[in-house]
């Protein structure tokens, strides 16, 4: 294809897109909606994976010591636990550190002054992170069996309070992931059919044009070129609009999840910001591919004159 032909095909494609703007609008909108739904489902999926990981990361066993326990006894327990292969790491929190943490907690302003460095009832603790959260229960049992616990020098274990929440969270995320994948697949199938039919109608409405082009001696490339370009423009614009709408909806979603009951911020926005150009690129690529491919497929039928 010569440069002259290429520039003519390009011009035709752009001009046709504009002159058939209603058809263009419909085709673009359908592709845009599809991209939007696919993107949102994928993002929700990724958000869920992230959240689940975050939650698992936070699963730990905190051992609170009674003031009767000596520092030596605590260090002894720490060494014992560190020897266990199921333990990833252990962090010791002293009374002073506990006080510091307490004073940082929001919403305790009224009672903040009740606890002071001189009169500090906050316990020392060991924060034990397991390699696999599944083994938390076994670790708790092990701690409960130590002499320290038997002597009543361990005030409490945090495990009991967290485990139910953790299990529920993991269960919910698994359910949402499966549901999301299922809905995405169904929607993807529907959109493929809808996009194809929309573009086919757009081409069908202009089949005379294809016939005329052929009769005045246009070769196949010249006939198809503008249609493919139009398809590409549908995809490009659809991706651009979908991207903007997604940004908008993310701002809304994030403001809701900020107030999440679990206290765990879903890192959708930070994730989104990190991958913003990849997402745009993916949407553009997919949009343009879908637009041109279906145009090619649709125009093929009318081209053999």
């Amino acid at each position, binding site marked *: 294809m*010569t440069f*002259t*032909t290429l520039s*003519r095909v390009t011009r035709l494609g752009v001009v*046709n897109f504009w*002159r*058939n703007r209603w058809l263009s609008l419909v085709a673009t909108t359908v592709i845009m909606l599809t991209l939007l739904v696919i993107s949102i489902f994928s993002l929700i999926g990724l958000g869920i994976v992230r959240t689940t990981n975050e939650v698992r990361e936070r699963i730990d066993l905190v051992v609170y010591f009674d003031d009767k326990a000596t520092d030596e006894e605590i260090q002894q327990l720490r060494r014992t636990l560190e020897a266990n292969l199921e333990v990833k790491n252990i962090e010791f929190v002293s009374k002073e550190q506990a006080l510091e943490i307490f004073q940082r907690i929001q919403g305790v302003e009224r009672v903040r002054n009740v606890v002071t460095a001189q009169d500090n009832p906050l316990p020392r603790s060991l924060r034990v992170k397991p390699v696999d959260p599944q083994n938390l229960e076994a670790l708790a049992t092990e701690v409960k069996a130590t002499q320290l616990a038997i002597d009543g020098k361990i005030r409490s274990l945090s495990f009991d309070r967290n485990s139910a929440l953790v299990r529920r969270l993991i269960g919910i995320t698994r359910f949402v992931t499966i549901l999301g994948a299922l809905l995405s697949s169904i929607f993807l199938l529907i959109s493929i059919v809808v996009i194809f039919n929309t573009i086919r109608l757009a081409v069908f409405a202009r089949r*005379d*044009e294809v*016939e*005329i*082009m*052929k*009769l*005045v*001696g*246009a*070769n196949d490339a*010249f006939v198809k070129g503008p249609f493919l370009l139009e398809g590409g423009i549908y995809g490009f614009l659809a991706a651009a609009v979908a991207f903007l709408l997604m940004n908008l909806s993310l701002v809304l979603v994030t403001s809701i999840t900020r107030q999440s009951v679990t206290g765990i911020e879903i890192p959708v926005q930070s994730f989104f910001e990190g991958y913003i150009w990849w997402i745009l690129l993916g949407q553009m690529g997919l949009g343009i591919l879908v637009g041109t491919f279906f145009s090619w497929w649709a125009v093929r039928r009318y081209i053999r*004159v």
Partner: protein
Amino acid sequence: MPESQVKSKPALPVVDRRPENLIIEFKDVSKRYGEIVALEQVNLKIYRNEFVSLIGASGAGKSTLIRLLVREEVPSQGHIVIAGKDITKLKYGDLPFYRRQIGVVFQDFKLLPQKTVRENVSFALEVAGVKDAEIERRVPKVLELVGLADRHGNYPTELSGGEKQRAAIARALVHGPKLLIADEPTGNLDPENTWDIIRLLLRINQLGTIVLLATHNKDVVDRIRRRVVTLEGGKVVSDQIEGRYGS
């Protein structure tokens, strides 16, 4: 076609039926659609500078003959030779090049509705890869020839039937074809516009293009006094050098 010829009144073209002037030849051409025989054993020779009217009732085979000539279809039997080339043997990829050598005008004009007159005409050159400067040079001339110089910026919907057909003729002519095929070009026009179009076709013929006019219009055929080929049931039943409808 040189501009001087467009403006001055040219002499009637002389048709010289010697073999070297043979441009179109149908050799035993038959076309069947399943059981239906659309054309049967058609033999026809058309020479340089000829103006041929093709007449016959609906279903006589006029449209089939034209579709074969445009190579929209291939004959079931026989050959069609244009300027020494058997077009029944053209490959799919060669069709665009062949079609750029002929011009076709239809009853329903087949103009692109979303292009202006000028763009419709330019289009035939654009698809052939003609340079912009050459398009700029040729299009105004051909629009002038068909009398649409002042309507070049209008869209087909803004034109009368006669004007639409002129635009279609301009498009068919702009690449300087050897042969202009007109399939019922006046079928949708009133008598006045009909004569305008026929006069235009005669003029184009006088400028050296073969014109093949398929028509129902008895009046037209009787008055132009050119060669008349009559089809009936897919066969050529008469071929008169200076014919009349039904005579």
